[in-house]
């Protein structure tokens, strides 16, 4: 990349010259940014080596969720949370619509975790397919998906061994089956 643009005619203008001079000043970034990127890269590499759950397990997990009656979206935006319910670590933002898919962001609060992935109907329950990335320093992990309208069973896998779903779900569904599954409806 050359720097010959510094001598471009347009920069003969004093105002623009000062604007460009200002914009070339360094911008301070979070010094942990590189480390977070490396952590994410390592986490993805580890997940790629993790064994995939077999088809029988996946069928059981999905069946348990359906039997528990979690047909409605159990991932509630904060403003829809019942009074007194614990703060949900999971939020979904359904964003841009396109001809056949919508942008969905999943967010999970998982402090002190080294890697988080989401597995579900949309990625064939593959723990290596959809890792979340950490943002900030508060233990928040996010991932963006492109999903066609429909219902998806899914859950989070933390550090390759611990499952997590929305704690605002009625405890019966969880205690009955022990399957931490959520259902997301994309409309």
């Amino acid at each position, binding site marked *: *990349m*050359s*720097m*010959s*643009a*510094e001598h*471009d005619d*347009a*920069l003969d*203008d*004093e*105002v*623009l010259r*000062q*604007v*460009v001079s*200002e*914009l*070339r*000043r*360094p*911008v*301070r*970034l*979070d010094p942990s*940014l*590189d480390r*977070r*990127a*490396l952590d*994410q*890269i*390592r986490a*993805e590499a580890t997940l790629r080596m993790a064994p995939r759950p077999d088809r029988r397990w996946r069928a059981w997990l999905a069946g348990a969720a359906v039997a528990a009656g979690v047909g409605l979206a159990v991932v509630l935006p904060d403003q829809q949370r019942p009074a007194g319910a614990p703060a949900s670590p999971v939020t979904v933002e359904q*964003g*841009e619509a396109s001809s056949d898919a919508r*942008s969905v962001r999943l967010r999970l609060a998982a402090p002190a975790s080294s890697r988080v992935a989401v597995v579900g109907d949309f990625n064939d329950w593959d723990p290596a397919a959809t890792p979340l*990335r950490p*943002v*900030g320093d508060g233990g928040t992990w996010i991932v963006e998906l492109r999903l066609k309208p429909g219902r998806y069973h899914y859950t989070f896998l933390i550090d390759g061994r611990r499952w997590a779903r929305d704690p605002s779900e009625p405890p019966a569904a969880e205690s009955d089956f022990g399957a931490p599954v959520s259902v997301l409806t994309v409309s």
Partner: protein
Amino acid sequence: MSDSDAALVARTLGGDLTAYAALMTRYRDKFGRYAFHMLGNREDAQEALQDSFVRAFRSLASCRQPERFGAWLFRIVVNRCRTVRRRLQRSRRFDADLPDDVAAGGERPDAFEWRDEIGQALEQLRPHYREAFLLRYVEGLEYAEMAEMTGAKEPALRMRVKRASDQLRELLRDVHVR
């Protein structure tokens, strides 16, 4: 003497993550500055840059000219900023975050206000005008390099740069002479 980009890419592909860390360190400030000016706030700029680093690592084997790793990575950063920018426009989430570097000696006494005005003026540009202006004048790319990076034709890029320049000049002239 520091390792070349090509050498660091080769070491990374061989499994040496410290080599990739060195590449990130080499480019983080330059590309972070671009992301900051494109997105208008530090948090989104850092997220875009972190995403870019991870995405670049995932597809590093497809970097056909490792000696031009910087240009290859920059293209990923530019594309990532476009994506984040579109998301921000949908959510209307902008704030006038400013560089917080230490004031240099001899700086204008109203420097903070001047930076604020520049940020606001950039914000008023269409995203592709802003992108072209930053690539051309702040990052110092040639038009051919910009065309390769953005996929736009050179005449279109020249027009975007000119219009961005005209708009910035118009928006900031009164502030500048104050």
